[in-house]
């Protein structure tokens, strides 16, 4: 029998970006809000204080701030007929852990999606015809439009204190910004970060090819800033310890620096750490949730009653919690029935490294979002019928860090050890820059999440199983980008050039880091037969359960997901405040 806690109005599962947003929005309404966080408590001081953060081995290589696979991991297989095996140590993606979640260790790339990406299937069908969509590609519309989300993008920009240059304000194209972006209602809150040498070189190369370079929208503050919650940021000092690290300097927007300090002032908000939710409890008719069950730091099972449950853990963990709780019907790719776990997608990356004997880049002068980009090969710029794929990428030249254990690019042909390796390290450290592509990944019938039949966690509960591999459509997209990146790189006349893009036939590899932009599995949409959540991220099946995060994406953006994740959380919070609290029940009739 579980110990039972005092009932609350709202229980938040996880305390990263999404539930920091939901927490403050509902606490401001006067609701009694409790957050349960599996990991430890974390704040800028003491957890991210200088000098201990400037430790590449501990944080950048041993991943001290990340979720530990020993406690929580997934299994992976490439196809339906294989046995999935555990992701035993971190590599391809780095889920966060503790208060702040992955929002503490991100780089701060803060992109809005393109309007077309939010109704991708309709856009593709209307523009190019139904026939260009491959048979097993399961892309969908989100059910919410860019125009509906714009006020929330705008507000989240201001919460984060994004540094950048708008390219489209109310339909008017702005010089120096992204001319292909959706219309914005206002300029970025802060001007762009200062530019490093790689930025100016890339910018010149892009302009020479008729492209439109602009500063990557950055949640590393370019100036001192106070956000709408009264939280203050200091200017980023380009410390070179951003991604994989907490910010030493109150410069990188994070749940801690942007929201939690204000949220903790609310007496009707509380949070408990070391509490791992293992189940959303349901009423007998399974139409409403009664609360959640968690294991506390002492290993004791606790029932926490609540009127409203908001699930906001890392993307795929949301899906696992729904499956463990029996919310919705698990997806079966063979019969093509059920929804929970459907449409997992990832992100397609590629890149080139350019070596210059006579250029000094000082790569340790870095900020997570220090980059110049072009969006000329975005989803709304490519003729999918002509090119033979659906998707797009932005290209970027970034200088985020010069940490020598994991960021020491060496020219092609360099031996991996011995005197030759050491000489190359001495000669070429600080003499290279990169040009990368960051691209979309479509969803497919056989790329999905389910409970694993073989592997379990410490509580004896099944791990989540990922079935995923790269498909020809997306590999063709990255090959297209390879040509664009190579042309830009050659335009700069490097002494050596190393190009790395996935070839047709490449299998998904869990070992090298790619991105932590895992999406889907609990997707939003307009039809309960093909989505887990309605357009407000409310469960179709259990109306007092909302699920926030990139698990809602029906396929992946070409961009980094945090801006859309945050804006969707504000969109859901608005629906809860203005509609759900007055009339608890489904916000959309199935």
């Amino acid at each position: 029998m579980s110990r039972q806690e005092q009932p609350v109005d709202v229980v938040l599962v996880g305390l990263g970006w999404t539930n920091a947003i939901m927490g403050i929005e509902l606490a401001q309404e006067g609701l009694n809000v409790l957050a349960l966080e599996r990991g430890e408590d974390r704040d800028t001081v003491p957890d991210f204080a200088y000098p201990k953060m400037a430790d590449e081995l501990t944080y950048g290589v041993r991943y001290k701030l990340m979720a530990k696979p020993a406690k929580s991991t997934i299994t992976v297989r490439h196809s339906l007929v294989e046995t999935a095996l555990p992701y035993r140590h971190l590599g391809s993606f780095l889920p966060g852990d503790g208060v702040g979640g992955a929002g503490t260790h991100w780089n701060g790339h803060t992109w809005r999606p393109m309007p077309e990406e939010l109704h991708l299937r309709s856009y593709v069908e209307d523009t190019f015809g139904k026939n260009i969509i491959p048979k097993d590609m399961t892309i969908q519309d989100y059910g919410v439009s860019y125009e509906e989300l714009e006020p929330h993008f705008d507000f989240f920009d201001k919460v984060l204190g994004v540094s950048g240059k708008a390219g489209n304000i109310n339909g008017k194209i702005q010089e120096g910004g992204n001319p292909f972006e959706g219309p914005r209602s206002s300029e970025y809150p802060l001007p762009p970060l200062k530019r490093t040498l790689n930025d100016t070189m890339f910018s010149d190369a892009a302009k020479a090819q008729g492209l439109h370079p602009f500063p990557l929208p950055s949640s590393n503050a370019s100036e001192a800033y106070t956000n709408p919650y009264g939280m203050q940021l200091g200017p980023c000092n380009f410390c070179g310890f951003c991604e994989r690290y907490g910010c030493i300097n109150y410069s990188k927007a994070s749940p801690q620096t942007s929201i939690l300090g204000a949220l903790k002032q609310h007496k009707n908000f509380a949070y408990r750490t070391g509490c791992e939710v293992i189940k959303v409890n349901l009423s007998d008719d399974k139409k409403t949730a009664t609360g959640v069950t968690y294991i506390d730091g002492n290993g004791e099972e606790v029932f926490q009653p609540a009127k409203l449950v908001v699930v906001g853990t890392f993307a795929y963990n949301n899906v696992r919690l729904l499956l463990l709780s029996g919310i919705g019907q698990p997806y079966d790719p063979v019969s093509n029935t059920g929804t929970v776990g459907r449409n997992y997608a990832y992100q397609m990356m590629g890149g080139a490294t350019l070596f210059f004997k006579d250029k000094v880049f000082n790569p340790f002068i870095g900020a997570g979002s220090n980059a110049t980009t072009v969006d000329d090969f975005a989803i709304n710029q490519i003729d999918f019928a002509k090119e033979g794929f659906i998707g797009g990428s932005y290209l970027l030249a970034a200088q985020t860090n010069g940490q020598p254990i994991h960021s020491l690019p060496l020219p092609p042909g360099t031996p991996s050890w011995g005197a030759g390796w050491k000489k190359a390290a001495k000669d070429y450290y600080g003499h290279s820059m990169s040009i990368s592509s960051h691209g979309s990944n479509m969803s497919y019938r056989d790329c999905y999440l389910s409970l694993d039949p073989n592997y379990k966690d410490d509580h004896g509960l099944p791990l989540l199983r990922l079935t995923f591999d790269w498909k020809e459509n997306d590999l063709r997209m990255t090959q297209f980008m390879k040509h664009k990146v190579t042309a830009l790189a050659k335009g700069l006349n490097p002494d050596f050039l190393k190009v790395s893009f996935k070839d047709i036939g490449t299998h998904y590899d869990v070992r090298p880091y790619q991105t932590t932009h895992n999406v889907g599995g609990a997707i939003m949409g307009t039809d309960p037969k093909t989505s887990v959540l309605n357009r407000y991220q409310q469960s179709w099946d259990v109306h007092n359960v909302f699920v926030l995060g990139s698990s809602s994406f029906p396929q992946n953006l070409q961009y980094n997901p945090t801006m859309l994740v945050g804006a969707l959380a504000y969109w859901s919070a608005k629906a809860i405040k203005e509609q759900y609290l007055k009339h608890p029940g489904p916000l959309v009739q199935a």
Partner: protein
Amino acid sequence: MDSNHTDDSRRRFMKGAMWVISASALGSGVMLSANASTAPELSQYKPVFFNEAEWHFVLAACDRLIPADDNGPGALQANVPLFIDRQLQGDFGQAKDWYMKGPFLEAPAELGYQSPLTPAQTYQKGIAATDAYCQKTFGKVFADLSAEQQDALLTQLQSGQVALTDVSAKQFFDFLLQNTKEGYFADPIHGGNKDMAAWKMIGFPGARASYLEWVDLHNVPYPMGPVSINGDRG
């Protein structure tokens, strides 16, 4: 700015400015030490994880993976073996953060680490098996081979051309090389990178972590030496 046009007065100014920045970057809670490092001499160090035979192997292997020469410190000068000894006693060596529940199955390489062995166990088995192979083939252990023989054998381990008993030669080599580079470049707080000599060789300023004034000074070599987490200056 082009470095060729930097005149002396400008250089002096920038050096002066950087002293201010470095002091503020270190913060108030950090001891500034003008003394040379207090890192132990490798010859005086008594390994805790490795036994004597294993230690001889690790010293010899590290010396080939990053040999000493005029370009910069070798792995032994940088106390890399000491770093590895500490790592294998600690969380990394014991795979404390890794999911190590069975069943352990053969898998394509793309599915990642699937060995039931911790890194510490991989070293123990790998060293024993490599030395046994060397005894059988050359009549002596790895540490007593010539540098050329050692290089050839390390190359065979890396490519998996040598099959070792009970352990993957390639996995063993991969850990050894990864940890050697880590010990070479990690902050000295972890026991390697003695005197920050590896950072000095490449020009990495370590834990300075404050560069705003330098962002838009393009193509100018950064003039300051490294600092460590403990406040040592190089």
